């Protein structure tokens, strides 16, 4: 019995060091040698200032930007999470209706048209970085108007959305989506080129 206790202690200690230290350290070394930017959170800068992570959705509400998924943690992941409301929840029903109304008010949605699920339902992480390409296209009109764009410039924005589109299976053409933060940063860059 005593022997077994001693054996357990030794085993636990050794493997705490091996698995907690050596294993984690090995992965850390490999990760930071081969993928240094990704290992450190895919951070992006704007005007030499940390402006966020490519993978963490931000709250956009100004009309000149594309808007992302609704978030119940106001896009501040401390901690991350979703609403956890069930489908028969009245609270969920109320917030979906409110979001739908504001979509119509912003001109992002045709009244009575199909409701984009990703724009009225909140995400699981609270910081979903993506919206579907279709949902982005709904917003082009408003974005272009807020930026005082000409007709050509508006179609340039449309092309930008297409260019930023990712797809899980490109040859099937399903599940297409855009990264809202990246799209908005590219949009600002695009407008810079117009000013010149």
């Amino acid at each position, binding site marked *: 019995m005593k022997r*077994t206790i001693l054996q357990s202690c030794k*085993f*636990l200690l*050794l*493997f*705490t060091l091996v*698995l*907690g230290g050596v*294993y*984690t350290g*090995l*992965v*850390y070394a*490999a*990760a930071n040698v*081969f993928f240094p930017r*990704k*290992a450190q*959170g895919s*951070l992006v800068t704007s005007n030499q*200032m940390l*402006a*966020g*992570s490519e*993978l*963490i959705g*931000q*709250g956009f509400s100004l009309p000149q930007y594309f808007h992302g*998924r609704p978030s119940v943690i106001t*896009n*501040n*992941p*401390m*901690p*991350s*999470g*979703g*609403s*956890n*409301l*069930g*489908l*028969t*929840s*009245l609270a*969920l*029903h109320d917030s979906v209706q409110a979001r739908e109304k504001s979509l119509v008010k912003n001109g992002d949605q045709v009244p009575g048209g*199909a*409701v984009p699920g*990703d724009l009225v339902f*909140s*995400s*699981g992480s609270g*910081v*979903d970085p*993506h919206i579907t390409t279709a949902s982005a296209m709904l917003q082009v009109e408003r974005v272009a108007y807020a930026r005082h764009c000409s007709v050509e410039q508006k179609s340039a924005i449309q092309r930008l959305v297409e260019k930023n589109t990712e797809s899980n*299976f490109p040859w*099937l053409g*399903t*599940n297409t989506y855009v990264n809202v933060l990246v799209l908005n940063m590219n949009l600002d860059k695009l407008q810079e080129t117009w000013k010149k």
Partner: protein
Amino acid sequence: MIIISDMLQFLLFLAAFITLAYILGKYFDSVFTGKENILSRIIGPIEKYTYKLLGVNSTKQMNWKEYTWALLLLNGLGLVLLVAMQLLQNLLPANPEKLPAVGFWLSLNTAISFVTNTNWQAYAGETTLSYFVQMFGLTVQNFLSAATGIAVLLVLIRAIGTRKGEDLGNYWVDMTRAILYILIPLSIVMAVFLVSQGVVQSFSSYAHVTTIEGAKQVIPLGPAASQVAIKQLGTNGGGYFNANSAFPLENPTYWSNFFQVLSIILIPGALVFMFGFMLNSKKHARIVFGVMLFLFVAGVAVSYVSEMSGSPLYKGTVLMEGKEVRFGVFQSILWSVATTVASNGSVNAMHSSLSPVSGLICMLNMQLGEIIFGGVGSGLYGMFLFILLTVFIAGLMIGRTPEYFGKKIEAAEMRWVMAAVLIPNLVVLLFSAAGLYLRDGLAGIANPGPHGLSEVLYAFSSAANNNGSAFAGLNANTNFYNILTGMAMLCGRFGVIVPVMAISGSLVKKNIAPVTSGTFRTDTLLFAFLLTGVILIVGALTFFPVLAIGPGLEQLLMYLGKTF
């Protein structure tokens, strides 16, 4: 179009799963039977050195009691160490966010949760635990609890396949091999792949950023990739971050998701093939694998149809509440089924916001005892209980003493089988009843109506079957839930392990009867039907009433357009 694309994704997933599980199964067999394999040149010397360091005599055999004691001691000590780390967190290094010590009941709950391979989380990772505790506490238990599952399975396989006194193997050797040859190599490959997709592996303090529109945002970081890899592979499921694999820094892309959901059932699937190789009974292993696969595919199908048919409250709108765009409906559903058939419990979408029938499938998967692939090791040894039950019932029907691999199944074994099958079920029902009856239990419920009942039922189904996922609206970080779910996790883990060890101790001593024309064969389709029937009947009789008034009722009321 979307349905065709989803079906293609599913076929791709199944093909990758079956192929990899088969290859790994063969490899596992070589590891545990001491055959030469591709890693033995590299890891062999490390293994020998480990035994030297630990003073382990690798040829010494243990009987079932010695083996069980060693197992319980290591688990017990691990629990104490993990509680201590959390209580002393503020004094330990690698805590850049200066997180305070964790309260006693929460740290006890978390420690039980990780030692029992449940990984139920009443805490939020990014705001509760330091890098030190995540690395040296949680990551370590992710490995040890998975290896323990494999060790128990090995004992059972040896008990069935051999007849040499009481020898069942050496716990320290089984653990060391499982960790060095299987869990570490797979985890390293997986972790580096995950970083290539964008999962963080950093020791920096959290990034404080000013967003494009000028708001403040804190981006939590940490050594996540190394932990996420073993969390998926070891059917642990405890997220590094609160939103688990829905959080983009834990699961950033479609392909990180594809391989994470694959890893959930990969080792449990491979162990079924390993069992076939070790006992030289590939056909029986294929039958068991087939039953598991059938129940898994059926679960995905029902859940997917339910989710895609939407809700009359949100006509024509894709149900994206709690889901992430990069995964979409299908990958969220696939994950929810995989994570609940296996005792993983990680999530990439919030289960509480799934359609009621999809939630029901999750609960039923857990309540069947986590045996459809199930946890690493624990899935197959759990399935053995049902196999023995089936063999026993078939034996009664034809009036012969039931046999399995030529070993007579008698009253002593059946008593332990019934204990192991009934303990988790009893805990689920009794504790849920307590949660729904007592004020402290009701206080945690977030959603009113039948969904509230589901929250409590889900919590105890998850805890007692060592799954760890949740209808996370439930406020589980109260003394009431921390203590009760903690007890449920211990009962569900060791209330099955000890009976399985006892059965092994009894089986190993028995003679192997030769196969005759009167032997009831376990490698036929007939056996597959019987086994499926027994699993579903035991689960259904126990849980249908409560599932009917929880998610069943909610689905009907949803069709009527009712909200709460």
